[in-house]
């Protein structure tokens, strides 16, 4: 794989489905394309510790949001406690993020292969895929893929003819953002109300059903087969020292071609924007959400997309969802819409998140509708500070970061709302979530841009569950 001049994708986890868009999710295609070889060689030829060391050496960091080194996470799992569980976080709820959905729909076998490698490394005999409830097509394809893998002996008793057993269960969530938080995900998986658990103990020690549990993101696991197959050196060819490899960036907003782009970590926002065809209608960048709705805003494209650079810039790579907003965006409305999301998704467990996001929505709504007061900006910052670092789980923190960065970076715009007694953008009714006409590119917005989106799209044959198995 060579990198040409100018921004270009480096397709590792997305290669297969770009190369074989017609049938990348079928076992036939995957096997013809060398699928499951990495898992087979891991289980047959490598010890679990060798796999663990390889993943550690690769420097792979979690692709779900926190960017925690995967190998280190695995090493926290007590070796002598059984059973252990692997849980795949396929709940992808971060606004602006749509990469895991694509991986689940278009290359489910790659994920299963990653699960096998993780399970072998950690000697876990059971894995659960916690799939976001809305992802109907992905769930069906993963379900089919799991059953195909069982049939081939890649899952089940003595996989690949070894003495190692692995069962994979697909579980569909019921639509709560909080269930993407790993401990809330476990509660939900166990059948309880999805709410984060008190830590410690951490899931690695006491997770699902009180047993050691590894929770990894879909993209993280999908990367594993490539690391095993090509080695650490190869993987580290891309990315930075501290953020090696490539990352899928869900790119959306006011860009010409919103889509997922797999780029080496360390790619600049400007390069990403170029990949996405630039701003639509020749617009200029006003604000950028660099890592999903939780991430504090940026106003310049000079930053590099990797964990450490964005942290230095006071924001985060998060799940790798970049939203470019042009100058038609009302930032009060942006703050309101973002905050309303967190308010709606707050589980209600802790005081600051539950009450703070609720209060902030009320205040933002007032400002947006021309009823703001001059002290409201301070109040919003106080609310943000009252949540930040005091909430039970990162959901509250995320809400406060988004709120604070909107107010701090665009304070003049907030004040304009108060002074004018109206939203200066109200005639245009434009913001990145708002309706718009005639947008070039593959879809209306990044969120709806995927060709396979929708429950009924592109089903291959009848649903096996409906065929009375």
């Amino acid at each position, binding site marked *: 794989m060579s990198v040409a001049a100018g921004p270009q994708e480096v397709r590792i986890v997305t290669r297969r489905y770009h190369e074989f868009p017609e049938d990348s999710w079928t076992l036939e295609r995957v096997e013809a394309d060398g699928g499951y070889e990495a898992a087979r060689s891991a289980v047959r030829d490598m010890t679990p510790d060798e796999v663990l060391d390889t993943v550690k050496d690769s420097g792979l960091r979690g692709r779900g949001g926190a960017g925690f080194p995967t190998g280190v996470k695995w090493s926290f799992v007590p070796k002598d406690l059984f059973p252990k569980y692997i849980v795949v976080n396929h709940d992808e709820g971060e606004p602006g993020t749509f990469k895991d959905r694509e991986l689940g729909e278009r290359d489910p076998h790659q994920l299963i292969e990653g699960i096998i490698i993780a399970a072998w490394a950690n000697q876990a005999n059971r894995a659960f895929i916690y799939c976001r409830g809305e992802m109907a097509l992905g769930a069906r394809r993963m379900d089919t893929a799991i059953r195909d893998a069982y049939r081939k002996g890649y899952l089940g008793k003595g996989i690949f003819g070894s003495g190692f057993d692995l069962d994979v269960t697909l579980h569909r969530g019921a639509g709560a953002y909080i269930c993407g938080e790993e401990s809330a995900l476990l509660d939900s998986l166990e059948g309880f109300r999805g709410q984060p658990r008190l830590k410690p103990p951490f899931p690695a020690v006491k997770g699902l059903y009180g047993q050691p549990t590894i929770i990894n993101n879909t993209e993280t696991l999908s990367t594993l087969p490539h690391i095993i197959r090509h080695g650490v050196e190869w993987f580290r060819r891309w990315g930075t020292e501290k953020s090696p490899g490539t990352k899928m960036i869900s790119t959306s907003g006011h860009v010409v071609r919103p889509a997922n782009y797999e780029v080496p970590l360390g790619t600049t926002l400007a390069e990403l924007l170029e990949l996405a065809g630039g701003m639509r209608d020749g617009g200029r960048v006003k604000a950028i959400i660099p890592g999903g709705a939780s991430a504090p805003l940026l106003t310049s494209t000079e930053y590099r997309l990797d964990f450490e650079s964005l942290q230095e810039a006071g924001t985060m790579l998060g799940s790798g969802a970049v939203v470019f907003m042009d100058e038609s965006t009302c930032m009060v409305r942006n703050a309101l819409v973002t905050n309303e999301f967190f308010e709606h998704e707050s*589980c209600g467990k802790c*005081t600051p998140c539950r*009450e703070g*996001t609720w209060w902030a929505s009320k205040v933002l709504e007032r400002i947006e509708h021309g009823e703001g007061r001059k002290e409201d900006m301070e109040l919003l910052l*106080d609310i943000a500070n009252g949540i930040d*670092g005091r909430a*039970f789980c990162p959901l509250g923190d995320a809400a406060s970061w988004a709120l604070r960065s909107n107010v701090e970076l665009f304070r003049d715009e907030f004040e304009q709302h108060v002074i004018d007694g109206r939203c200066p953008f109200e005639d245009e009714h434009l913001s990145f979530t708002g309706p718009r006409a005639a947008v070039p590119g593959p879809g209306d917005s990044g969120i709806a841009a995927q060709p396979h989106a929708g429950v009924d799209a592109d089903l291959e044959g009848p649903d096996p569950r409906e065929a009375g198995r």
Partner: protein
Amino acid sequence: MSDGNGTVTVTINGRRVETHPGRLLIDVAEELGIFVPRFCYHPGMRSVAVCRMCLVHVEGQRKLMPACATPVSDGMEVQTDHPRAVDAQSGMLEFLLINHPLDCPICDRAGECPLQDQTYAHGPGTSRYVEPKRTYEKALEISDLVVLDRERCVLCWRCVRFADEIAGDRFIQLVDRGAGTQILTFSDEPFDSYFSGNTIQICPVGALTAKPYRFVSRPWDLKTAPSICAYCSVGCPISNEARAGQLVRCQALPNENVNDFWICDKGRFGYHYVDSPERLDNPLVRKGDSFEVTGWAEALRTAAEGLRGAASVGVIAGGHLTTEDAYAVQRLARGTLGTADLDSRIQDDGAPYELMVDAAGVAGSTATLNDLESAQTIVWTGPDPREELPVLFLRLRKAVTGRGAKLVVVSPRRLSLDAFATHVVRCEAGAEAAALEGLRLGNERPAADDVASADALVCCWGPSSPGRDETPILEQVVALAAERGGKVLVCPPHAGSQGLLDMGVHPALSPGYRRPETRGRRTREILEAAASGEIDALVIAGADVLNDFPDAELARRALTSGAFVVVSELFATDTARAADVLLPAAAYAEREGTFTNLERRLQKLEQLLAAPGTAREVWRICAGIAAAMGDDWGWTSFDDVWADINASVPTHAEVDVQALTQPHPVAGPHQESGYELMPNDMVMAGPGGPMPKGHRSGAAFEAGQAWPLSWELRSFEAHLRPGLIPVAADGTGEVGTLTERASATRREPGTFRLLSGRHIYDEGTMVSRSAMLHELAKEPFVALNAADAAEIGLSDGAQAVVEGATSVTLPVVIDDIARGAVYIPYDQPGLHANTLMRGPEPTVTVRPA
């Protein structure tokens, strides 16, 4: 800094303290007198850290840490008054208050409300919130006793956690999410828990209120006194609270030895009988077919004359007498009346408590309630503790679900314990002893394996069914414990039961577990002798033998045989109506006294109210009868009684009864914290103590005025009232030769052993006169095994004719009960089951109606 003995040193607000690792910061701070504000944390339940009120600054931590979920570690430096922490506390209160209705002027909780207290101490003075508040339907009745106001709720989860973690009654839950999260019950199920009232007490706001207390009083208008619940033998400490001379509320006082922090709803709401207009207020003397109100002098003289003229006197005492009353009854019987015929086991459980004396040196428990929690295995045989000893049920549940003890239940019928028992041994009725022997000999596997492997074993026994002879069962329990080095928890039924045994109200025990010279008659024999005329006078203290003795016909004959009957009672019970002299007694809230609980712990009751009319303590009544008979004991005060007990009862010689009471918390280290805004000062201010210094509300309270305490602060009181278990001589550890076990012989189809038991809300003298609870009493039924029912053509819900001494038609409930036995509740509205019973080991026939 660590001394190597498993202790750590932490510094909180500049004060160093050595403590055990793993303890929670919030507890360690509190011991230093540093009160960290909190809503969700409760020492009796696992931390959830959801309210975020207790955030404190820990050196080296980027974020503030919740003190309720942070274990102390060596060298930890903590500042609860760090500016960041103070800002967080104030901010959290502002968040909590934005949606709180601030309807304190009409809220029952105002004045003792943790939200109010902590807002005064830590909250902002004004609100910046200008938008409409969240609203819900107000005053939702979620059960017959509990009312919910979701607007006031701060979503601390205490009620939900209590119901789930402590009571195991998951009727109250969180629904919806985010700012719409609310506490609610399921639409088709009320909050139908025997422990629901605890959620009201631990609610840190006025979201859960008690139906009988709504709008009844302000806490500062309440006069309160610590007391002990007068119902069952667990002996939960309670706070009696009265307004204008009327008992209006009863709350749990915590004692970690006894009840943790909890009481049952019977204990909490069952106080209305005290103020009932039906209470006897003056002595009554029979004149022909009716009673005449007299003064005490005449009544006592009449009683003395009647008793002096009797050839033989029998004395029967009920289970709700205090230790002092029990001693007085015993002294009246053995001393003044010179009779050996006295007993307090009016359910004729045939319980051979005296058997324990040889084995253990005491006629009661060798185990304490705390032993349950360190036990590896617990064996239970006896009544259903959820119905008869509710807080013991909670302690057992905690031992099993919280501490991992194994529980083996030996019973011929399904008990509430089965839900979390490790092993249920469903033996035939009458074969409990054989099942226990199987456990002892290792036959009853796998339960026997858990018994055999337990280093710490506690065997619990209580009388399982009225009229049963429990001797072989208790023998096996004692033998099992002895062989495995275990302890025995003896569970007599009522608050006074153990005190009556300790004080020798028993035909084969004199005070202090000694053997009397003459062995007297037990309850059944006394009644038989009275019925036959052999005994021609009866003294009955607080016992409704007509309704409680498991042979109603025998009791009726005994009372109507012409014997001279003296009764002291709270109410004109059926038994009292048969008296020749009826003497009104004081209820538990109207007197000083002690109860001895099932672990033999003495705990003190304080007087809160005046008794109606001239009603008085049973010990005073007994002393009065004795004096009228020419035997003046010289008792005029409670302390006189105890001087006599100290002198005459060897086990109680060293008991300093007044030392059991320290009604007001003492200052101790709490004064040292020096906080201006912390409510530590409230901690020091017991009822009657000074107003807290940190109170910001200005001059609302005069210095020195009583400051009512919210429950958190009350908890300090309890540590000073642990009660006392008197030391007794050791026993041999063994019982003599085991009695031959009654074999469980199958009877004719349609003929069944009659098992019975009391339910929490029943027709008992006190509870049936507590209006709120009487409405909750279940209708009587007959429970039987599905196979037995099918054999005689009955099914669930069908009507069956049950015939014993009398005949009654009851609805059938198919239940997990041994074949050959039926279960009928003992005393539910419409049926006193003792009317069905004749003789010991009663049987009935059952046929379709």
